């Protein structure tokens, strides 16, 4: 059964700093997703990572996937306050399923 673990669960950082959120998953996953959630809001899709070595970037966020290590990372460059949110990674289970298994989320606070 696919399990997804994120760390850290809480991250407080200063504007302008860099940091990385880690997402480990337990078994082979077809796809790895990153979502952003603002308080009380929906899940906004950030990245879909399909294959080993995939790297995608959007603004100050960059996501990568290492399927051999079963690890995805979300790197934040020169953080700004607007990036404050909870970030979830989620893996898609294999074997004909369309079920996403989410990590617990990383609550990011960027302090001015």
């Amino acid at each position, binding site marked *: 059964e696919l399990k997804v673990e994120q760390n850290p669960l809480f991250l407080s950082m200063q504007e302008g700093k860099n940091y990385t959120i880690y997402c480990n998953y337990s078994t082979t996953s*077809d*796809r790895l*997703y990153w*979502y952003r959630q603002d308080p009380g*809001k*929906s*899940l*906004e*899709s950030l990245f*879909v990572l*399909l294959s080993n070595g995939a790297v995608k970037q959007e603004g100050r966020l960059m996501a990568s996937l290492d399927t051999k290590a079963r690890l995805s990372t979300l790197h934040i460059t020169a953080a700004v306050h607007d990036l404050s949110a909870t970030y*979830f990674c*989620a893996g*898609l289970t294999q074997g*004909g*399923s*369309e*079920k*996403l*298994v*989410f*990590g*617990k*989320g990383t609550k990011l606070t960027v302090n001015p």
Partner: protein
Amino acid sequence: EPEVTQTPSHQVTQMGQEVILRCVPISNHLYFYWYRQILGQKVEFLVSFYNNEISEKSEIFDDQFSVERPDGSNFTLKIRSTKLEDSAMYFCASSGGRRFSGNTIYFGEGSWLTVV
């Protein structure tokens, strides 16, 4: 940007009552899902729906729950005889194509259900 729409945004119901949450997935999408998120916890899969039938459901999705696509646009989640522990944000989601197409799974804004 296409979007999944959900109604109601918030519903308060008494324990034991039936609730129907409604969703309009993105048109031309083929896969539909319900997830829920208890306050402060992670998002949990409830059910997936494809070709007018349930393709997968979780242990949470017991006989108390049912889904339906009554017409070409709506996708509903019915919760019979609600319990206090059903209080959560319920998200509808949809995706366009086959498993390996890399399609994004789009989530709606959610329906807050409070059972009192």
